């Protein structure tokens, strides 16, 4: 089966003042896959995601998301792509349903349709009992799940997840990863996942990219990366070992 490309960047570059955050980044994500986006802190992963969402203007190069240029058509890109930032924020004095209703109205979803959808999504992320609780009283894990409900409200084709498991307990992180996998499998959502949790990424990603100092140093299936670095099959090497190898070389 020939997979079509959903995200493509060509020499994408971003400077902040004099610092270069992203340098000549070129990579591809195929439709329907989970792409693990790896790299140390400050490697430019979040900047890349922001540029793909059209929230930040690239200094050079170009990007295509579902065939659209996020620089020229940000609204269209935002309609099909959901972005879950690292520290997802909510209005603490509103309850879960009110928060979701606001996002639904921003997406132009009619009120009666939105209520139905919100019920369904809260059920999906397991927050049905807390629907009328103020979000200010939510734990980190609950907020993260509410964040998922929020990005799913627009039925995205594509999800950008920025460190979704950061600060979660091991059990919560594991369940979240399984949830992401189920989204990809059941709803055919392409996922671009940035994470430090290499063990989990290895389990759910079809392909990975390793970004260091604003440059993509490796891109491909874990198997192919292992072959490239160690010359043997993936079975014997974990993603962590591959990642460390790349990291030491730079």
């Amino acid at each position, binding site marked *: 089966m020939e997979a079509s490309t959903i995200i493509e960047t060509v020499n994408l570059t971003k400077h902040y003042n004099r610092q270069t955050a992203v340098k000549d980044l070129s990579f591809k994500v195929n439709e329907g896959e989970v792409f693990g986006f790896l790299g140390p802190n400050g490697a430019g992963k979040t900047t890349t995601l922001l540029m793909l969402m059209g929230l930040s203007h690239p200094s050079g190069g170009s990007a295509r998301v579902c065939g659209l240029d996020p620089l020229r058509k940000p609204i269209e890109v935002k309609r099909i792509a959901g972005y879950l930032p690292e520290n997802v*924020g909510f209005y603490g004095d509103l309850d879960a349903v009110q928060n979701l209703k606001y996002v639904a109205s921003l997406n132009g979803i009619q009120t009666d349709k939105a209520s139905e959808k919100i019920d369904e999504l809260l059920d999906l992320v397991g927050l049905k009992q807390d629907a009328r609780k103020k979000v200010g009283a939510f734990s980190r894990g609950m907020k993260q799940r509410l964040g998922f409900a929020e990005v799913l409200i627009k039925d995205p084709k594509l999800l950008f997840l920025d460190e979704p498991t950061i600060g979660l307990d091991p059990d919560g992180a594991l369940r979240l990863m399984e949830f992401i996998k189920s989204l990809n499998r059941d709803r055919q959502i392409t996922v671009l996942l940035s994470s430090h949790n290499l063990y989990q990424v290895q389990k759910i990603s079809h392909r990975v990219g390793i970004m260091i100092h604003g440059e993509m140093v490796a891109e491909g299936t874990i198997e192919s990366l292992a072959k490239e670095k160690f010359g043997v099959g993936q079975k014997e090497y974990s993603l962590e070992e591959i990642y460390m190898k790349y990291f030491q070389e730079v």
Partner: protein
Amino acid sequence: MQGLYAVFKKELCDHFSSYRFVILFALIAMVSFISSYMAGIHMKENLEALASTRFPFLMLFSSTGALFSMVQFVAFFGPLIGLVLAFDSINRERADGTLIKLISQPIYRDAVINGKFLAGVATITIMLIAIVLVISGLGLVIVGIVPGIEEIWRLFVYLIISIFYISFWLAVSILFSISFKSIATSALASIALWIFLSFFVSLGANVVADSIAPVDRQKEPNPEMIIKNIRIREMVSLCSPMVLYSEATQTIIDPMRKTTRSVVLMGPMEELLSSRFQNPLPLGQSILVIFPHMTALVALTLICFAISYVIFMVQEIRT
């Protein structure tokens, strides 16, 4: 448009359910209520003396009862409403991480700032109309006077000027909430600017006038110098939106005021004329007198909002 409406609706709900709005509204309503009540009682006691007045209804707003009139009170404390409504409008969303969520929805980026500004203006409008209506009702009950059509028009113009005046301060606080990351800083900066423009500019105007056109009060005063001094002082104090606003509203509320200047040079014939014909100005003429003031206030509001708009649109979302 749908994004703008969604933001507008949410912000309006937030304003009306927030404690700070309720407290401010209660404070302003209470004080204007009391000051007009005092004015009303005062008018009732001296009804005979007022029999010659042409516009008794407007005096509810302009006459100083115990301490200050309703018009003066709004000039002083109206800005506080604008500042308090919006000093944390953008930077709180930034700090809470909701701003990035907002703009990653399929809405134009300016919908956020336009929605916030318009919601603030709507809140101010509703608040001012409510206060003016309550005071009018009070006037009807206490003094038993019915407003004429011209008085209603004058109150309408007064409302429009007041809305722009308070919206100017709303725009200032939005500007500060965009440019300062910390909420405390933006609150402090907007209050500092309010104090400076409202209280210190008139002091500064005195200093400037005295240094350019010194008036020696010991010796025989030179009338030309005195007038020059006053002119300079008036010109400098026009830098303050509060002065602009007070002059404009006092002229519109009091039809007997024919100019915003305190000293008018008149020849003997003009003096005779003006003392013989003590008639109020028609509304159109009153508006003409304060037209520069109104234009300046509207321009200030728009410029201030335009600056915030531009900064917000080009700002990196992640800093």
